[in-house]
């Protein structure tokens, strides 16, 4: 049986195929942005062909597909989501767009607020009110809902979000509005805040709900089409979608909770990074993933990626848990351009897959990072994408030359300048997650991924003085690999407010049981038997009177016996986080949380025997590559022939299909016993 990880990026769609938990195969096809499902199917056909099977025969043997998609992310960033209407409580029309009055850069008056997800004219208010005890104060005036529907129909909205005050205590009004909407607008995608995020705080809940509505219809359409096409071709296995929280979920849940896929693409990166860094006993890593369009960075400390519940995407708040990944617009396709001040700039605009860099010869006219790397001799025009895409070097030369003329530079200096600028942008990105959050990047190993990552890895490491670089052999499909290593994961929350000591244990048990029941049912629907489910429960606690809470894990299921240990754990955690605790003061419950993991089968790293230090059996040629101001004759090795122990001293180039590793002078690369590449600076001792 096969398991496949599929990561649809802005430029390439990556596949990692694993056969019977062992052999890995890497595939890559060009993304088809107008309908990403087409690229996915094309990839399936290609894999079947290589295995000498018909597509149907192959797909029948696929047990699991884990899929990461950037469809929702892109729609949000490019503001091309669904036309969305919003219904909220009368008197609170602008809570979503006022963004709690915050202007992030206070000393810069020259900025505009982010464009609203829902414009004011599509935000409708209805007369109704639930109070802070969950009691109805004003019944729902349904007339207002029908008025909203009239407007939404006239304006042809595709999606409607509903978020009412205190609906997390009493969802009856929201549910009734949902019913009316479903009856009267059956084709419209409907999101209720009480389903997406039943949690206190209006703006954060509104924003999460509106985002779900904004991206939901697109994702729903895409997933339906993908599933239909795969099924038509013979697929009978499980299709799972990667979520922002680092876990996976079923198709049905993904369609309903689209907001949880906003980081679907990169969220499996940390899991993959830890997997490959494990043999080097390193739980402190920074993963960088550079594809055609973007550069994703994530810092992992003590084996755990940071998770945030105060996430943002394109200036919109998301309060559901997500892996804390920083993204900048720097990739192989990033376009080099000259700004109004005559300065050379690179990105964030990307030539994407189509037309792509000039050297693709697919009609691209804007010089890109990939064109520059080709001119500097880092890429082999005959071996790009495994030779499936012959690069047109002469076109790249012309394009870069033309750009250089405007700057008064020759083409090599221009290409070198483009790389220097993109390097600075990437180094800033790494600083953002490390230095700016108080971590010294030198204490982390750099795990490098993505088609374009290994070209720049030693240069980035050099700028930041990072001593250890790990390039997995599957680095070009890193996130796809991570997806196959991820478990199904669902987060649940219930707001429960009572002082510890006056709490109602039966009620607490009931709420946990509700969540557990929901979790087991969901995981069952996703094909996970009960013995494969791991449940973690926690509670958000605070001192009575505080406004914020601390999440404390609740160990052991005998809740009655451990409730006082929970208080101790809270005091302790409060002290370590905030420098003090007040053991004499009363503590109260705010939220009860439950996370359920559906543990899936995973592959392991295979070990290979030691060969020798000599890499020459893998030598495939020599070419001129540009380092520190001049072209040097640089040996080129076939990565797939490099074996455990082989040592390449920079300058050197290691090539694999879809991956080119540049080893700068002053660095050395060796192949470890798992066939992954380890790069160190020559001055590094350790």
């Amino acid at each position, binding site marked *: 049986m096969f398991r496949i990880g599929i990561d649809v990026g802005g430029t390439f769609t990556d596949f990692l195929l694993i056969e019977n938990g062992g052999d890995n195969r890497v595939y890559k096809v060009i993304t088809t942005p107008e309908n990403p499902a087409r690229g996915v199917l094309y990839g399936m056909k290609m894999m079947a062909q290589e295995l000498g099977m018909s597509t149907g025969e192959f797909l029948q043997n696929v047990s699991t597909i884990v899929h990461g998609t950037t469809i929702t992310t892109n729609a949000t960033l490019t503001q091309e989501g669904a036309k969305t209407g919003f219904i909220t409580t009368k*008197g*609170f*029309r*602008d*809570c979503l767009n*006022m963004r*709690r*009055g*915050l*202007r*992030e*850069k*206070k*000393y*810069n*008056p*020259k*900025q*505009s*607020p982010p464009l609203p997800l829902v*414009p*004011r*004219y599509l935000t409708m208010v209805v007369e109704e009110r639930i*109070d*802070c005890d969950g009691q109805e*104060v004003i019944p729902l005036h349904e007339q207002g809902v029908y008025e909203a529907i009239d407007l939404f129909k006239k304006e042809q909205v595709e999606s409607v979000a509903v978020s009412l*005050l*205190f609906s997390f205590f009493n969802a009856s009004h929201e549910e009734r509005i949902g019913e009316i909407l479903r009856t009267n607008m059956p084709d419209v995608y409907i999101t209720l805040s009480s389903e997406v995020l039943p949690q*206190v*705080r*209006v*703006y954060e809940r509104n924003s999460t709900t509106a985002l779900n509505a904004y991206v939901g219809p697109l994702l729903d359409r895409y997933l339906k089409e993908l599933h239909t096409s795969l099924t038509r071709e013979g697929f009978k296995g499980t299709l799972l979608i990667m979520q922002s929280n680092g876990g996976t979920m079923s198709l049905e849940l993904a369609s309903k909770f689209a907001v949880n896929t906003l980081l679907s693409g990169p969220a499996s990166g940390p899991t993959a990074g830890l997997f490959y860094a494990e043999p080097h006993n390193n739980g402190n890593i920074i993963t960088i993933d550079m594809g055609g369009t973007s550069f994703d960075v994530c810092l992992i400390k003590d084996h755990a990626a940071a998770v945030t519940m105060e996430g943002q995407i394109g200036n919109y708040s998301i309060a559901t848990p997500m892996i804390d990944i920083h993204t900048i617009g720097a990739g192989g396709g990033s376009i080099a351009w000259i700004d109004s001040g005559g300065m050379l700039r690179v990105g964030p605009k990307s030539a994407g897959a189509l037309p792509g860099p000039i050297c693709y010869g697919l009609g691209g006219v804007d010089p890109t990072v990939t064109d520059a790397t080709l001119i500097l001799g880092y890429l082999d025009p005959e071996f790009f994408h495994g030779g499936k895409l012959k690069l047109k070097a002469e076109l790249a030369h012309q394009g870069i030359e033309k750009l250089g003329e405007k700057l008064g530079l020759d083409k090599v200096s221009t290409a070198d300048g483009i790389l220097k600028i993109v390097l600075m942008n990437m180094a800033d990105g790494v*600083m953002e997650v490390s*230095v*700016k*959050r*108080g971590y*010294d990047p030198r204490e982390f190993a750099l795990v490098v991924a993505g088609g374009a990552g290994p070209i720049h890895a030693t240069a980035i490491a050099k700028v*930041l*003085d990072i001593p250890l670089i790990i390039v997995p052999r599957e680095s070009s499909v890193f996130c796809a690999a991570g997806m196959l290593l991820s478990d199904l994961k669902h987060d649940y929350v219930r707001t429960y*407010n009572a002082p510890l000591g006056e709490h109602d244990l039966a009620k607490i048990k009931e709420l946990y049981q509700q969540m557990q029941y929901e979790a087991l049912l969901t995981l069952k629907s996703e094909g996970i038997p009960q013995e494969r489910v791991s449940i973690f429960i926690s509670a958000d606690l605070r*001192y009575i*009177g*505080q*406004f*914020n809470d601390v999440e404390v894990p609740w160990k052991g299921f005998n809740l009655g016996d451990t409730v006082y240990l929970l208080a101790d754990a809270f005091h302790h955690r*409060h002290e370590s*986080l*905030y*420098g*003090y605790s*007040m053991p004499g*003061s009363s503590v109260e419950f705010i939220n009860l949380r439950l996370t359920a993991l559906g543990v899936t089968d995973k592959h392991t790293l295979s070990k290979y025997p030691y060969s020798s230090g000599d890499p020459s059996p893998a030598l495939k040629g020599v070419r001129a590559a540009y380092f520190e101001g001049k072209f040097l004759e640089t040996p080129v090795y076939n990565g797939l022939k490099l074996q455990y122990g082989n040592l390449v001293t920079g300058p050197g180039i290691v090539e694999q299909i879809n991956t080119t590793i540049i080893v700068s002078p002053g660095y050395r690369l060796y192949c470890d016993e798992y066939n992954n590449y380890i790069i160190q600076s020559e001055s590094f001792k350790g």
Partner: protein
Amino acid sequence: MTTQKVDPILTAVLDSRFNALVEQVAGAMVRTSMSPIFAEARDISTGLFDAKLRLIAQKDYLPILAANLPLAIQVIAEYWNGDIHEGDIFVHNDAYGKNSHQPDINVAKPIFHRGKLVFWVITKGHHIDIGGKGLCGYDPTAQTCWDDGLIIKPSKLYVEGKRNKSVWDLITQNTKLPFMVEADLNCQVGACIVGERGMLEVVEKYDVDTINACLDEIMNHTEQGFRDMIGEFKDGVYYGEKAFDDDIVNRGKPVTVRAKITVKGSDITIDLSESDPQVPSYMNSGWGNTYSVAAMAVFYFMAGDVKRNDGALRPIKLITKKGTCVDPEFPAAVTMCTCTFTETILEAVLLALKDARPEWSTAAHGKMSLHIAAGFNPRTNRPFALIDFVTCGNGSGGTDGYDGWPQAGPGHCMGQLRSPDPEVMELCSPQTVWRNELIGGREGYGKYRGGIATSYKVEYTANVAAVECGQGHAPWAVPTGIFGGGSPPPSSPRVIHKDGTVTPIQINTFWDVKEGDIYEQDMQGGAGWGDPLERDPQHVLKDVDDEFLTIDGARDIYGVVIDPETGKVDEVATKNLRQEKAEAAATKEQ
């Protein structure tokens, strides 16, 4: 002494580390406080200093606190000079000891490494009560700083690691909400410890001399960047003045701040000595606050984000005259200095400097009329106190190329005050919020208009005490539009009683809230920048679509004709109408 060359990577790492750390210290305060002022509105600031008391980094959630920490720490260090020991923690709130106002309590901890004082960490926050008869520290009848509230000269909360119980008791027992003041002092102590732990980690890794060498580099670099920017200002002497409603005792008589600003090369001197004499109410600004506003006003013109360490403050000089409202003689009351006074000094400086750097000039934010309430909440069975920051929902001013932002707050907040969450407020206070949304027609018009104002309506479910503080009810106090832009109308908060009768609320007065009373205010939007007749007709149309402006308003104010049938701009009619209006205005001027 180290002869090592400063490592640029290490300098960048440390600079960011310190900035991350002050943010972490502030985060500890926000996340653990029991007062909505810290936790929801973030009326706090935190800072790190070196042994020479130079500001290393600060997190100034409220910009008005931006330049005040260096003064507070100097006063503490001088007051206890020779008697500062490991484990000491200091507290200080004296406005005549260069603090802002008494509700802002500073808690500072010297950081020792191997027995030597190497750094300081300080936190400042606006406490929920500071004694006196005011609500949350605000007493419009106050005439002296003793009326304002408890005065704490620098004192020790901890003496060499031991809690100094008598000081804690003395402070907390002289406030009306002792348990909350104690909890928030605890929260500040904890935040200082978070800062100390972080700094000690840094010191353990790199030695103090290396760190200090990097700090010199960081501060010199900031100063240079700042001076380069001031170099972009046109040299000259500039004047600006602004008044607020009155001094309370003499109702209707404006109090004026006058700024004379000299820009020469890379130095700026702000002379406020011609301002009105000090007044017999809490409407004065102590020197510490005045200095902080002056620096903050200059930051407005700095074209974006500026680092705010010791280096940034070096090019700015302030001149005041003792006995004026911006530098009063002891014991004048000063509680309103961080709000009303800050807005007024700020606008005077903005109006003066607008001609020195017109392209970065900004019209002022709407002025704040602040609602405060306190009492007992029968629902939670606990006392509550509320500075209702929803009433800070003012719009910001327009600037060249950009409209002001809605709900960005008054000038002293600059979009940093996080507007309270209505659900959280109802869970804590005896309130039902009926409206918190935007309302058009209360912004200053202009080519780039002021930010849209917020409309607020809240009902009380218990009898409580309230006070209305601030300004902006008098026509001379509203922000002035610049380069042809308009001003918003004055504010007029009111109370609607159960029987339907309506009582206007006078600014700077106490009033009693009866159960069922509704407080209502449409806040003031920001002032406009540039001639409304030059506003992009499509932007005018968007305001009409968003229901901030009527079709009649578009025609009368902006000279934009919108066809009610198609909902589109009539380009020809608009061009003609605008020309007509421009000619009429020119005739009128002659």
